[in-house]
């Protein structure tokens, strides 16, 4: 051994230089003594397989079809051998063959470290541990990453732990880092190394830097944020839509180095006297993975399985084991024929969703800076019409010349300085001209003050606030309006909106009830509606008088008179609280689902911006999530109706 003088005792955690010949003698030495596995080409791809000579070994591959974790956790292995019958006995079966895996990329080493945590910490797994202790891992830096890999984003393109030896090909030879005492012994027994020269250390850094610049895919969000953004988007429609082409073929989980789930089953010999208990690789993407004996499947939809897998990769594994759950090897993305499996793509899509939500928050913040939140815009009173002695319609125009921009069903905070501010629903549709109308009953200080205003006077306006009626849901449907008393005030904005866009809806029925003929509102409009052939209009009064020739009776008596198709109809109901209870009963009798019954709630809304707390019912702020709700939503809000 001519080079003997140059050799050193290779200490753990130190890096040395090794010639190509030195590597050859290491590999061939190992092949002579134990089973050696490494990477070989196959059909234009690379696979891990048994290596019989150094020249078979490939060290400059991009990625293998399946990971080397199969040598620690085989696709199928026997856990127990047993005998059947009265005195059945079970013996563990533990494999102890010593092996070396040569050429393991850092991302796979990181995956093995995860398996170590999962199988060697709580409830240590004897089969895994034994195999792991008998396995030598010789890594090699990945200098030629697969186009589907994103290991650099997951922090797994390099590793300082998890190997016995780690090689870097620097062209003229190898750098070798010793990762364990076993690594020291390997070098001492099979090869020689020497202290590296400065130029070699520089070269190693250069090839690693070049390699990390070669990754084509990257995570667009810091990976520490993945658990949080996944959690926040658990219900997003993304999971459903993205998983639509999923074949549930399991290819993604079968090629994944961080997937380690398994099934356990018994196989009995034909003599029915003895058998084996096997564990076989299984995966959460497969249809029956979460199915129990009674037939119930706890993850029976493609979307739920697809989401679970991505959550395991981005959140659950990290939280459970403290290690990254996806090492970014890209094997699943290569294996998935439907081209939907890549975790980086899912992570980035979710990051984009999270970013869009945050951008909305930012935009809202910019649109309503804190200094302006409580400052009203001035509006001039341009017209007043008396409806009844107690109720007037006020028409306003904003002095800044801009339209109010309301949706039907929204409200504004109206202020009269010195008196106060009150929430008032908007009675006119945005489809009408640049003014807006507020119909107001005289009931308190602010409304009394408003009733004293004359044309040309100004008030303060904040808003519009609230969600408004669900215009998108109503589109194309039959609509049943039910207005009780001044419930017509907010509902009128939607009635106008629907009449102005009449062709966008099916049948339109409008029911209106007032306490007495004297309390009927918007008489001109009631008359016009009753003559409009495009709508079915019915009205009633609770108590008639000598002048009244129409229906008498509460509004619920009108409902049995109309023909409605419960599948196509959306009922929009606004009135006093007592009315809701009875109208709901009638509508349910007609078969309307809870989702199709829409109501607007009245609550004390002091601030309109979700702060003061007055309008809160259970978990919702009516001024923010309301005032419009479906009955289905209100069923969960015990305080609501």
């Amino acid at each position: 051994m001519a080079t003997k003088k140059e050799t050193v005792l290779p200490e753990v955690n130190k890096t040395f230089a090794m010639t190509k010949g030195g590597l050859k003698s290491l590999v061939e030495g190992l092949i002579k003594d134990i089973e050696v596995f490494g990477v070989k080409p196959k059909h234009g791809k690379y696979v891990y397989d048994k290596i019989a000579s150094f020249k078979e070994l490939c060290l400059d591959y991009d990625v293998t079809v399946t990971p080397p974790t199969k040598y620690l956790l085989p696709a199928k292995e026997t856990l127990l051998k047993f005998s059947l019958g009265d005195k059945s006995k079970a013996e563990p079966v533990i494999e102890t063959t010593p092996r070396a895996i040569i050429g393991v990329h850092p991302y796979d080493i990181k995956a093995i470290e995860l398996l170590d945590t999962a199988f060697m910490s709580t409830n240590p797994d004897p089969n895994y541990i034994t195999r792991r202790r008998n396995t030598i891992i010789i890594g090699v830096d990945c200098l030629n990453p697969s186009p589907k890999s994103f290991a650099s984003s997951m922090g797994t393109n390099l590793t300082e732990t998890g190997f016995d030896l780690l090689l870097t090909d620097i062209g003229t030879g190898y750098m070798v880092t010793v990762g364990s005492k076993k690594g020291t012994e390997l070098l001492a027994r099979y090869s020689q190394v020497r202290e590296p020269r400065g130029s070699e250390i520089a070269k190693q850094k250069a090839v690693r830097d070049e390699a990390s610049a070669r990754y084509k895919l990257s995570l667009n969000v810091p990976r520490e944020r993945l658990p949080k953004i996944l959690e926040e988007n658990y219900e997003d429609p993304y999971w459903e839509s993205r998983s639509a082409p999923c074949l549930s073929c399991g290819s993604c989980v079968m090629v994944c180095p961080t997937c380690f789930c398994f099934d356990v089953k018994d196989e009995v010999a034909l003599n029915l006297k003895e058998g084996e208990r096997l564990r076989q690789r299984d995966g959460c993407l497969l249809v029956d993975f979460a199915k129990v004996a009674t037939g119930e499947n706890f993850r029976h939809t493609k979307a739920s399985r697809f989401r679970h897998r991505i959550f395991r990769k981005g959140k659950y594994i990290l939280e459970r084991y403290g290690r990254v759950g996806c090492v970014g090897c890209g094997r699943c993305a290569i294996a998935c024929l439907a081209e939907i499996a890549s975790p980086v793509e899912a992570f980035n899509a979710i990051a984009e969703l999270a970013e869009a939500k945050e951008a909305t928050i930012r935009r809202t913040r910019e649109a309503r800076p804190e200094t302006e939140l409580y400052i009203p815009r001035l509006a001039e009173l341009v017209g007043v019409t008396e409806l009844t002695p107690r109720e007037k319609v006020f028409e306003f125009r904003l002095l800044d010349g801009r339209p109010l921009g309301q949706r039907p069903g929204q409200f504004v905070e109206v202020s009269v300085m010195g008196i106060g501010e009150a929430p008032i629903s908007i009675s006119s549709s945005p489809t009408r001209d640049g003014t807006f109308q507020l119909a107001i009953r005289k009931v308190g200080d602010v409304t009394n003050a408003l009733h004293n205003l004359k044309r040309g006077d100004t008030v303060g306006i904040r808003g519009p606030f609230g969600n408004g009626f669900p215009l998108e849901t109503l589109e194309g449907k039959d609509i049943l309006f039910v207005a009780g008393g001044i419930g017509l005030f907010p509902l009128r904005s939607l009635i106008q909106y629907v009449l102005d866009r009449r062709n966008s809806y099916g049948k339109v029925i409008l029911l209106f009830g007032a306490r007495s003929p004297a309390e009927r509102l918007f008489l001109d409009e009631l008359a016009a509606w009753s003559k409009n052939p495009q709508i079915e209009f019915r009205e009633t009064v609770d108590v008639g008088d000598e002048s009244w020739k129409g229906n008498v009776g509460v509004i619920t008596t009108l409902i049995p008179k109309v023909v409605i198709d419960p599948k196509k109809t959306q009922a929009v109901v606004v009135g006093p609280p007592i009315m809701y209870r009875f109208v709901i009963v009638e509508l349910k009798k007609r078969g309307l689902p809870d989702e199709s019954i829409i109501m607007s709630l009245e609550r004390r809304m002091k601030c309109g911006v979700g702060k003061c707390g007055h309008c809160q019912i259970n978990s919702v702020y009516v001024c923010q999530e309301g005032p419009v709700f479906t009955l289905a939503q209100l069923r969960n809000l015990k305080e609501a109706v």
Partner: protein
Amino acid sequence: MKPKVAFFDFTGCEGCQLDALNLDAGEVIDLLNAVDIVNFREVKTERTDDYDIAFIEGSISRESEIPRLKKIRDQAKIVVALGSCACIGGVNCLKNHLPMEEALQIVYGKDARYYDTIPARPVNAVVPVDYYVRGCPPVTAELVKVIKALLLGKKPDIPNYPVCVECKMAGNVCVFERGITCLGPVIRAGCDAICITSGRRCWGCRGLVDDPNLDSEKDILKKYGLTVEQVVEKFRIYNTYAEVTK
């Protein structure tokens, strides 16, 4: 009392029966210790109408086969469909795309008038089937697995996942990556992806998984260069019956 096992053949090549007991000598002895094989045309000539477990090979393609099958169902405690023809209709169903008269003409020419035929169908289209041993030919190990499960009184554990699972476990390079199309993603595993491992592709002889995403598989086949007709043809070879009844 050992259960009495009978094998019956309907329309098929009888290759399933031929292959069924392709066991090694030790296993044959174990099997014969466990069950009495009473009817098995490829092995013995004696026959009896007293049996517990009936293995049915072949699809049903003649009117006269229907009462014969119903009689077997009445007699047997357990009916097992053996092979692709019995389980899913198999290649016999290819003729279902033609008028029956024309099919007879093509096959028998001037002698067609001596034969009758009906659209071919799997056993479970005529009588209830308890278990299935799939494949063309069936995997012997799976037949043995079903027999063992019956003897132990448990449900045989037949996968409801596609061939891809076993193909990946076998360490194969996906044939799609080599420009070859394959039905593996929607076909029931249990064959250990033997065709792909042996350098071929999956033609679907074990039938579809319970809830196959056929739209997605068809899109993938088209993406890899197949025309709509070629896609349909691929499915028809073994899975005509599933296709036409859906």
